[in-house]
């Protein structure tokens, strides 16, 4: 392919967008709408996943230290706890703090007036890397010397795990379903655009144009339309996400969405890549039929 031909493909592809303005507009519109629907759903899923992860990370296993150990020995158990693979952090929670917390919760604090903090053991609050392995980690903790008891909030952890599983499955199913529907709609739009130009393709074949010469301007056009749709969808998505976070969600709930600043790069990359792939493959697949005929 020489540079004249390459330039011709790009010039023709670019001109095709304007010469067939209505079908170009329809293709960009449909691809943008599909990307926005998929993008919005993905962002909701990402935020739910982030919330669940945060809840998991703040859920804890309480490790009670053997009361026969001195304060210093009790504290040193923390070093061994931190060595366990799935432990994210072990936070020292002395019996004084436990006593104070207990008193604080009572309606009548005077009830505990005659007691001292010694009735509580020293504790460690253990946060996990992955709550899925909470049971195994609890067993490892129980096996440590100096550990008297290990309390796992099994119901909470199981609920969180269930939520995570449901969110993951629903996200994957919905995104795949939306992707299939979007591809179908997009392919039909491109098919219509190509159908409008079947006469042009037939003439090209009559004058002896090679298949590549016929195909490439359409591919370039699909590529440009896909990129345009990807960029447009990205800006609309950023606008909609920030509006949703600022104007709708913030005034009525304490939920904090992930800032778009943290998400822009993957969103832009996915939108451009999807736009590019849909544009190029949509054109290639559709035009193949006319080149075969």
């Amino acid at each position, binding site marked *: 392919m020489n540079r*004249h031909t390459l330039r011709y493909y790009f010039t023709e592809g670019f001109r095709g967008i304007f010469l067939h303005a209505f079908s170009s507009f329809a293709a960009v519109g449909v691809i943008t709408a599909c990307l926005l629907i998929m993008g919005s759903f993905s962002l909701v899923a990402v935020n739910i996943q982030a919330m669940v992860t945060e809840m998991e990370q703040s859920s804890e296993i309480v490790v009670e230290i053997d009361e026969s150990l001195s304060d210093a020995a009790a504290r040193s158990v923390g070093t061994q706890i931190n060595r366990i693979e799935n432990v994210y952090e072990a936070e020292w929670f002395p019996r004084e703090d436990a006593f104070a917390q207990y008193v604080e919760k009572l309606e009548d604090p005077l009830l505990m007036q005659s007691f001292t903090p010694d009735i509580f053991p020293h504790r460690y609050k253990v946060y996990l890397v992955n709550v899925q392995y909470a049971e195994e980690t609890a067993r490892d903790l129980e096996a440590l010397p100096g550990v008297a008891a290990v309390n796992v909030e099994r119901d909470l952890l199981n609920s969180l795990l269930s939520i995570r599983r449901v969110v993951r499955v629903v996200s994957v199913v919905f995104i795949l379903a939306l992707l299939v529907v979007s591809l179908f709609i997009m392919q039909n739009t491109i098919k219509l655009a190509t159908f409008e130009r079947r006469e042009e393709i037939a003439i090209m074949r009559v*004058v002896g144009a090679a298949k590549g*010469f016929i195909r490439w301007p359409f591919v370039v056009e699909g590529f440009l339309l896909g990129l345009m749709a990807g960029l447009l969808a990205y800006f609309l998505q950023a606008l909609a996400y920030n509006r949703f976070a600022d104007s709708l969600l913030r005034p009525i709930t304490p939920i904090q969405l992930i800032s778009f600043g943290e998400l822009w790069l993957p969103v832009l990359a996915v939108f451009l890549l999807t736009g590019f792939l849909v544009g190029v493959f949509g054109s290639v697949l559709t035009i193949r039929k006319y080149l075969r005929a």
Partner: protein
Amino acid sequence: MIDVYKAYDNGTKALKGVTLRIDDGEFVFLVGPSGSGKSTIIKLLTSEIRPSEGKVMVNGYNINTIRPNAVPLLRRTLGVIFQDFRLIEKKNVFENVAFAMRAVGAAPKDVKKRVPYVLDLVGLSHKARRRPYELSGGEQQRVAIARALINNPMVIIADEPTGNLDPARSLEIMTLLERINALGTTVLAVTHERELVNRFAKRVVAIDGGRIIHDGQGGYYTNDPRRAGARE
């Protein structure tokens, strides 16, 4: 074309043993009623279809065995003109002619040089920037002829080139084809216009029912009173 038979998938037998030879530089009229097999001959020549039996050779290409990637190369040796002009509405006259040249990989500077020459040949230099819908039928057909000529083909195949034109414009187009033929290009013109066939007195090949029923120099309609009055 040697003893060519063509049967379509639906069972229609379009050609039944056609043998036809057209030499370089000839001008041939192919005439016959609707459904006689004229279109099938053109489709065979442009390698849109393959013969069921027999052998077809066009400009050195064997249509029976031609590979798909050689079909565009064969078509570059042919210039095809249609009754309905088949111009691209969204391109102007210059672009319609130029893109046939670009399609065969010509450099832009060669396109810029050759297109005005060919447009001048068909008398349309002054309308290079017009779109097809701004032109008369005769002018549109001249654009189609320019497009067919642009790659310097060995053969021009004109499929009912005057079918959509009035008698005066038809004469103009046929005269133009005759001039092109005089410059050395072989011309095969399919037509229904008896007056034109009579007037130009060229070789006439008549086909009916898939068989060649006449092949001779001029006078096909005038020599036989039954044909002279017949409307095809």
